[in-house]
């Protein structure tokens, strides 16, 4: 059973509640004087691709960090599949099925590509405690399963040939793909991508688009923070536009493109 199928299976296993899969109300976050995120409410249905766009400094990454638990909100509620997230630290949210990638690539440089992916299986080992010291059958099974799954994930992102190379020596595009593979290794139900297309060339963006489409077909819910409009328009079901930490507009890609206030925010007061 290859990894992406396993991912899809996990997504189906928990019947999505009729209401939003991930919702937040009145989220606020301040750093000293700067109000990075002000009163953001979201409703993300299961199995959809939700894009967050906006000019630099609009608070996109901060919002993503609030969702992933890196920052705790000053105010507001966040609920993921019925579970209240506020106060839950980042590492606990992973067990609930949340995974993320980083805008600034944070790979384990001194580990091999395969090592990076295997490290991400942390929450999915089923080995009795004593077998961590005396490596028994369960350990061997888990060990083999992780390696097989990791290689599948590398194949999924096209890095299988680079498995034993040190992560630090990967090309930029490859590093982006490894970040995606690592996030998938936690078998998430909600995947948050922080500017995955940043620095990629056209061909690499195309490959990324294809991967995201594949994941969506398998029932994965994805939140993308992105500047690459071409990618956003092609892949996302709904788009949230943020400006100065506030909710500017939310709608389908087509509505966003046509909306004057969005254009103004992006292109400056042209009219």
């Amino acid at each position, binding site marked *: 059973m290859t990894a992406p199928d396993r991912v899809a299976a996990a997504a189906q296993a928990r019947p999505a509640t009729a209401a939003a899969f991930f919702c937040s109300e009145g989220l606020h976050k301040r*750093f000293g004087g700067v109000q990075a995120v002000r009163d953001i409410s979201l409703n993300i249905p299961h199995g959809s691709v939700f894009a967050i766009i906006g000019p630099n400094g609009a608070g996109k990454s901060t919002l993503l*960090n609030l969702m992933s638990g890196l920052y705790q909100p000053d105010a507001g509620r966040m609920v993921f599949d019925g579970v209240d997230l506020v106060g839950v630290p980042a590492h606990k949210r992973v067990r609930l099925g949340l995974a993320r990638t*980083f805008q600034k690539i*944070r790979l384990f440089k001194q580990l091999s590509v395969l090592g990076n992916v295997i490290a991400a299986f942390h929450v999915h080992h089923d080995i009795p405690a004593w077998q961590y010291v005396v490596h028994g059958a369960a350990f061997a099974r888990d060990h083999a399963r992780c390696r097989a799954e990791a290689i599948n994930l590398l194949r999924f992102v096209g890095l299988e040939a680079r498995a034993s190379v040190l992560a630090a020596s990967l090309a930029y595009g490859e590093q982006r793909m490894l970040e995606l593979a690592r996030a998938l290794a936690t078998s998430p139900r909600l995947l948050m991508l922080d500017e995955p297309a940043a620095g990629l060339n056209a061909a690499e963006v195309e490959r990324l688009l294809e991967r995201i489409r594949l994941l969506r077909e398998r029932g994965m819910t994805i939140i993308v923070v992105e500047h690459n409009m071409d990618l956003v328009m092609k892949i996302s079901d709904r788009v949230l536009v943020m400006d100065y930490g506030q909710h500017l507009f939310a709608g389908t890609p087509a509505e966003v493109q046509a909306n004057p206030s969005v254009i103004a925010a992006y292109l400056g007061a042209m009219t």
Partner: protein
Amino acid sequence: MLTIVLQQGINGIVFGSLYVLVALGLTLIYGVLVQINFAHADIVTIGAFAAYFFTFLFGGNYLVSIGIALMVGAALGWLVNATIFAPLRERGSELLPLIATIGVSILLQNAMLLWFGPIPYAFDSPYSNEVIRLGGGTFITWQNLIIIGVSAVTIALLYAFMKFTMMGKALRAVAQDRETAGLMGINPNQLIMLTFVIASALAGMGGAMLGPILVLTPFAGTSVIVKAFAIVIIGGFGNVEGTIIAGLAVGLVESFATQLVNPGLTDLIVFTLLLLMLAFRPTGLIAEKREENV
């Protein structure tokens, strides 16, 4: 009873400024480089020996020997930065330079032991036993007065240098963000070398002034360096004002601990203070908490 409190206060300030002289160099280096030079106190000891030999072997004037020690410190600072911190900077590892300078500290101390021998040197400047009777039965020696004076002047000069000169502003830019400073046409490596030379020169000069107070053996640095770290952390790594306040505070804690409890326990008290500070305000007295940006 008042004389005792007053006198211990004076002793505390004298010893506080002694610590500030050593800790200042550490804070400067950390402020710009975010690195620790573990051999910093051994530069103080070498400065003290340089001043001693200049005054007693070559019969030089004590005040001139402070200049000599300053230059010796500067030269050592240049050497340590060129051989240890510059090459390691490419590797971008935070801990390797600290570990390398632990090696340098062991090397310097035992090299000094080979050259100068273990027997303590009686380094007395013309001012170390001249006592000034202040009012109310309190006293201070000229040497201690010089220490307070010189460290106050040094702090003022440093403050002015950082605030008003172009070089000072460039230094602060490098401290905030080395890459961007580089983009602005500031050569970070040159400035980092400058910081190192200034910090180590301060240490050398400090050595010349502490010599007549310390028990001058090659191991004089060990007792000072650990307390200097405590002070730099309590004050907030890289924060000059914090270091000054923390240095004076530790000096006062030590003298009053000697008065009320027992000199043997001063280290224990200072380091318990350090650990409590780290638990509740890890970034030190002054510096504000910085959110980890991702």
